[in-house]
């Protein structure tokens, strides 16, 4: 799959609000569940989502940093927390405990899950979809935000263009630190006046398009399909369900002083089953769609 196929993926083309609810459910799970086993399943789901929708390239590129940060969290927890009853060994007279290791692993997985989830989040709910979510409630704010999103990369590009042109034309190669700071100051000044000057033209072009004369509405870009509503209700009900479970105290896990058993029993087993089913729903969705495509192909070949 990966980035090239995502356009024909049924989950990718879901309504932004459905996607938003999926991520609400996913993030709620990551923060609510304390069981390391469940967190591992969630982390796997986040990785698969990132690989599937953002592509392997992007996934591996981001993973370099995510793994590094995760490892740091794990190491810090092992070295700094000395709680727990099963001491594995002593390091510089400090006890290193099994419980601290397990809690560190849990912490690492939780943090890594959040960061990995954001990789696919950025692809599935890109800026235009994300703004669309808020445009009905805050049309003007979301519009200004959209303008800012357009402007930031433009500013960066202009800064590098300006610096390139100036360095060629000034012909000076070795500059002292003082000179360098001075030049950067000049660039910043020039870029600021450029922005302000252009702002006036932009304001005029908005004015002639009647900006601010009526209540701004938003172009209706997405429509709910039956599938969207179905998925949306599943995600909403599930989110409600796990919050109730959390309030009733069914999502916790004991790490200190002695780590509880990871095994799942009774209600916890049901909870785990439902969670996996809902969080992996996009893949089930994709699977059904690709099976259908396969059958249609077969059917066409037979004819």
């Amino acid at each position: 799959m990966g980035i090239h196929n995502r356009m024909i993926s049924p989950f990718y083309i879901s309504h932004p609000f459905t996607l938003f609810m999926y991520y609400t459910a996913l993030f709620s799970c990551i923060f609510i569940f304390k069981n390391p086993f469940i967190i591992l399943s969630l982390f796997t789901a986040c990785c698969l989502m990132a690989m599937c929708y953002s592509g392997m390239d992007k996934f591996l590129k981001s993973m370099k940093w995510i793994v590094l940060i995760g490892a740091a969290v794990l190491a810090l927890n092992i070295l700094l927390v000395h709680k727990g009853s099963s001491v594995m060994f002593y390091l510089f007279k400090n006890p290193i405990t099994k419980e601290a290791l397990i809690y560190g692993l849990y912490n690492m997985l939780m943090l890594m899950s959040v960061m990995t989830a954001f990789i696919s989040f950025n692809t599935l709910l890109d800026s235009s979809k994300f703004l669309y979510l808020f445009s009905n409630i805050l049309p003007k704010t979301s519009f200004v935000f959209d303008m800012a999103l357009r402007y930031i990369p433009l500013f960066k590009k202009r800064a590098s263009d300006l610096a390139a042109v100036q360095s060629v034309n000034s012909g000076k190669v070795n500059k002292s630190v003082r000179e360098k700071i001075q030049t950067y100051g000049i660039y910043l000044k020039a870029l600021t006046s450029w922005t302000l000057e252009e702002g006036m033209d932009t304001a005029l072009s908005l004015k002639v398009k009647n900006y601010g004369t009526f209540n701004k509405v938003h172009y209706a870009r997405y429509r709910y399909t039956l599938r969207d509503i179905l998925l949306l209700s599943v995600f909403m009900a599930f989110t409600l369900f796990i919050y109730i479970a959390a309030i009733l105290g069914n999502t916790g896990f004991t790490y200190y002083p002695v780590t509880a058993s990871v095994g799942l029993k009774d209600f916890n087993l049901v909870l785990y089953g439902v969670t996996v089913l809902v969080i992996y729903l996009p893949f089930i969705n994709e699977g059904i769609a690709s099976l259908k495509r396969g059958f249609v192909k077969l059917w066409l070949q037979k004819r």
Partner: protein
Amino acid sequence: MAPKTLISIKDMGFTYENYIQGKTRNKVALTDINLDIYEGEILLVMGPSGCGKTTLLRSLKKEAAPYGIVTGSIESITDSSKISIVFSNPETQLVTTTVLSDLALAMENLGYDPYTQKKRMSETVSYFGIEDLLHRHPDTLSGGQKQIVSLCSSLMVHPEILLLDEPISQLDPISALEFTDVLRRLNEELGITIVMTEHRPDDVISLANRIVYMERSKIVFQGDTRDVLKNLWETDSSSIRDFLPVVSKCSLLIDKDIPACITPKELKLMIKDYMPINKPVLKEEDKEKDTVSESSEKAVRIRELFFAYGKEKYAIRNLDLDIDKGEFLCIMGSNGSGKSTLLKIISGILKPHIGKAKTSYSKIQYMPQDLNSFFTEDTVHEQMSFKDMDEDLYLSLTEKLYLKEILYKHPYDLSAGEQQKAVLACMLLKKPDFIILDEPTKSMDPSLKRVISQLLKQSEATVVCATHDLEFAANYASRCVMLFNGEIAYSMDARSFFKENRYYTTSVNRAFNQINADMVLYEDVENAFGGK
């Protein structure tokens, strides 16, 4: 039946109120304007920079009208919401992150219901065939595409009058033609009235039904296109004649009693009846150029050069190029053929991925396409002056480029043509031996092109210039190369380049090449037909 008058301007005057250092320094922009705009026409407003074209155009729409003292009256039977305006700078008119949101903006602002929005969006986008642009980021579009998107966005509100302020002045000729085709369709198929300003009329002259020629805030001539062209010719002043499109100039030179031609085709049909009186003679400089020996010193030597921006494809591939010291080289080619990339590699901004680019110049000056990235100071004077500057050169450049008026203005407050002048002055003051120009003539008056080419020649520097301006290259370059698909397709001295080309050539050559006359430039026609 006489056409309906949509807007009628009577004795209008306009003055900008300026307060500089506590004193009132008003600037008169328009005086005694009397003009009617008729339903369904295309009206072209022409004139040198700063003659008041833009002020006149903007006064026609209430929301865009400049601030100042207005006298006289503008009567319009069209509601202001049915008048749309498109400005010259495509950058400032697209403000969001997708083309779709920009297209929808005007409708969103007017609070249209979802059904109307979708209906207008779908029909407009389908009519212009820009469906594949819809989900792209505005920064990935070419200048021409951006301008078409701005136009479509303003058409969503179903305007009756379209005002265009130098819409093609910042576009390359190919994009300019695409844009004018769209305008032609709008006018012919939908009957939308179009009023546009332009100071480079070659590309739009065939569209216009009527022309208004302005000078020093007044209307000097107005009337049917061909009549005004003839009026301009009859003024006998070369600076006014420069505003005529080259084909009209040629036809009026050959026979001023027949209506002026406005397309190369008309000129081609017309000249069949006229035989040239003198054979054009090769200019002396041209002969000199032919004798330039192979062994002359090289300023740049590029061998087997490859360069790519992303992973997908090479923008430049396997390119070999030698640039002799002191030559004026023009790099021609379509959009995206790699011209700007090549210039950036020569200037050292980009490094080649494979291959070598050896350069042997001591002082280089580079003029980027976006001139705003050249300016860092608050006034043109500050931008120009530096320590140990040659005062005499400063004075002579100021005089020759007519910079006196703009010396103490902020560079961003200048028109595009004035900015180009200022940049050239700054560059020449540094006395470089190598000059790189990226599209230097986009919004320049023809007379100015002559001045800058003289100045460049006087500086004795090697000049490398990427340009779409065929007339400029034909007139002033010593050699032209064609960049195609990332490599140099062919290289020739400028005259042979345009003489041998069939499509990619000057309008004079397009008209004359079938009668086997050796004519590439307007000057050749002048020589042959016994001009001055």
